[in-house]
């Protein structure tokens, strides 16, 4: 019994630490959806590029980590602006076309990445190797750090959205685009910005998980669907909801995995999602 409790505690810890990584990836997705109403399939690819960026900047070119991060940040912001301008803007409002366009975009980035980066697994050495043991629950240092960074990024996003003029504009557009436009808000510019920030979040998420996992160009695909689940369960466009759902699903997978086995837990996550959609169609914190 005691063993069991310990297992669950450990599972809970792992779940939360993994969940916050999910949150990082999903946040950008939900931000972009909130403003542009785009289900951005290419999001996972940006995450992958972020991770690869760390590999090539920090490991291959031996740049200082901070500098690598800055480079990734700048590049991802730019990429966001370009993609919004080149692909998303011309299709604003046509959600079917947008879904397909982002699928195409993700395919292009991924296949180019396979060609460019090759098939060998890449990896980034961990900076923090220690284990923090707390009441018999073992917490890897590097994951704690990543979780902390994640928390900081979430906080920053909150500040941006709820404490700045840009954020105000974003929320206005999310509420009612037409009115926002009438109020003289340059919706196109805000959309571009949202897209850029969303991309940056994804890239940074990739950058910070790079030392934890091994990297290959397929890694984006592996996270994107889970991220969709999270933003849906959390409620599209809701930051708090995304954070909640991310942690929830992380814990669900992990504790569920401990109790009924990873195999069953995998299915369980989807069952939960369908349940949420049936009983709270707008997601946990979505505006119905």
């Amino acid at each position, binding site marked *: 019994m005691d*063993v069991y409790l310990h*297992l669950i505690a*450990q*599972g809970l810890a*792992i779940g939360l630490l*993994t969940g916050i990584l999910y949150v990082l990836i999903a946040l950008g997705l939900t931000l972009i959806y909130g403003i542009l109403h785009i289900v951005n399939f290419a999001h996972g690819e940006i995450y992958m590029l972020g991770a690869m960026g760390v590999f090539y900047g920090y490991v291959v070119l031996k740049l200082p980590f901070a500098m690598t991060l800055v480079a990734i940040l700048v590049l991802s912001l730019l990429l966001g602006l*370009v993609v919004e*301008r*080149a*692909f998303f*803007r*011309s299709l604003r409002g*046509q959600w079917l076309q947008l879904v397909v366009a982002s699928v195409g975009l993700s395919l*292009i980035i991924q*296949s180019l990445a*396979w060609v460019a980066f*090759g*098939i*060998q*697994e890449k*990896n980034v*050495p*961990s900076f923090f*190797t220690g*284990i923090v043991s707390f009441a018999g629950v*073992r917490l*890897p240092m590097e994951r704690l750090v990543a979780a902390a960074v994640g928390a900081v990024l979430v906080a920053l996003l909150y500040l941006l959205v709820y404490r700045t003029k840009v954020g105000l504009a974003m929320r206005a557009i999310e509420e009612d685009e037409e009115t926002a436009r009438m109020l003289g808000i340059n919706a196109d510019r805000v959309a571009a910005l949202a897209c850029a920030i969303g991309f940056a979040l994804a890239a940074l998420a990739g950058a910070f998980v790079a030392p934890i*996992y*091994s990297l*290959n160009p*397929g*890694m984006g*695909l*592996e996270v994107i669907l889970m991220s969709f689940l999270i933003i849906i369960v959390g409620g599209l466009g809701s930051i708090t909801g995304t954070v909640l759902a991310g942690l929830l699903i992380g814990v669900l*997978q*992990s*504790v*569920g*995995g*401990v109790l009924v*086995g*990873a*195999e069953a*837990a*995998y299915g369980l996550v989807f069952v939960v999602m369908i349940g949420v959609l049936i009983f709270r169609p707008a997601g946990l914190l979505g505006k119905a």
Partner: protein
Amino acid sequence: MRRSPLALAVLVALAVVSVGAPDSAYAQKSFKIAAIVPVSGPAAAFGLGCQRGLELAAEDIGVFTVAGEKYKVEVVTYDTVYAPDKTVAAMNRAVYNDKVKYGVIIGAGVHPPILPIIRETGFLDFAFAAAGKQITNPENPTAFRIMASSDQLYQTYTASIAEKLGAKRIAFLGPNDELGKNDAKAIKAEVEKMKGKGVSFVADEYYERGARDFGPALLRLIAQKPDIIDTDGSPTGSIALIAKQARELGYNGYFVNTTAVLEAKAISDIAGKAGENIIALRIWANPPTKLYTELAERHQKKYGEAAPGTLWETYGAARWLVDTITKAGTFDTKKVADALAGSSYANHPFGPASWGGEKAYGIKRQIVIPIPASILKNGKWEPFDVKSGKFD
């Protein structure tokens, strides 16, 4: 509807690039060997190994004569993306359109739908698949397994490894697909035989292909206090993360892995010290033959990276095949199959090779080659000398 000129520009540029994509060449008087393998997607590493193995073999074979006619080996690649339906498409194209009669096919999971085609057309299949009797059996006389099968690996090593390490509790963590489930059965059967010696199988868990978090599964396994965790055919990335995360959870026993595509450097880069004590079957710590070394160097030169583990067996099989064809003086796959099964081959990169498996599979279509065992120490493979059990 607004258009985006910039986007179009970008795309046209891309289009130009992609039109320059490689396509299968059509040479005349050529002897086509197909690589029906994944060259894209997560399993690409395995496929490229086979493709390059064939290409290197083709170079070395050069021109050969059958019934007075001169032939040159031409390698034709068909991407299966490791998906059953795509494999069926590839097979149809190879067999019916390009009239290919010989080839390497990767994957136990993709074999069932093409076995009927193999039987109907007598296609000579060099199966690169660990799992199962469904490929190697009397019904498929033209299907040769050119790598050690799971049954073979586990029969050869499970007992002796446990003995050497004095391990009593053995656990299994494999991919949640036909390979994982099949190999779990194989290892359970082997551990059963050791009941007398007090060795027991304590738990089996499965993970989704491409998973990067193994925490829950590992927790359940480690709770059973295993001495060895068999990680099945988990590829480099997975085994490294499994080791890393298992150590983080306080496991300090051994791992056993049975895949050929395992990069010592990558593992120790990803897992650091945690990567120690991974025992790899099918990985050579020291080159077994001069040919092996020479191929490794040529691959590095030609493709600019370390050779994927599937290279050697494919190379060996291709050379062996052409030898047999030349001797038999015919391309008739049935005749060649019989000749091949009866023959043995001295110049396999792993050493002397022959065919066995009558006992296990009821037909002599399972390659029998030296199977290496290595252990990861200080980021390098070191020989792990255990006496290998018998397989026939």
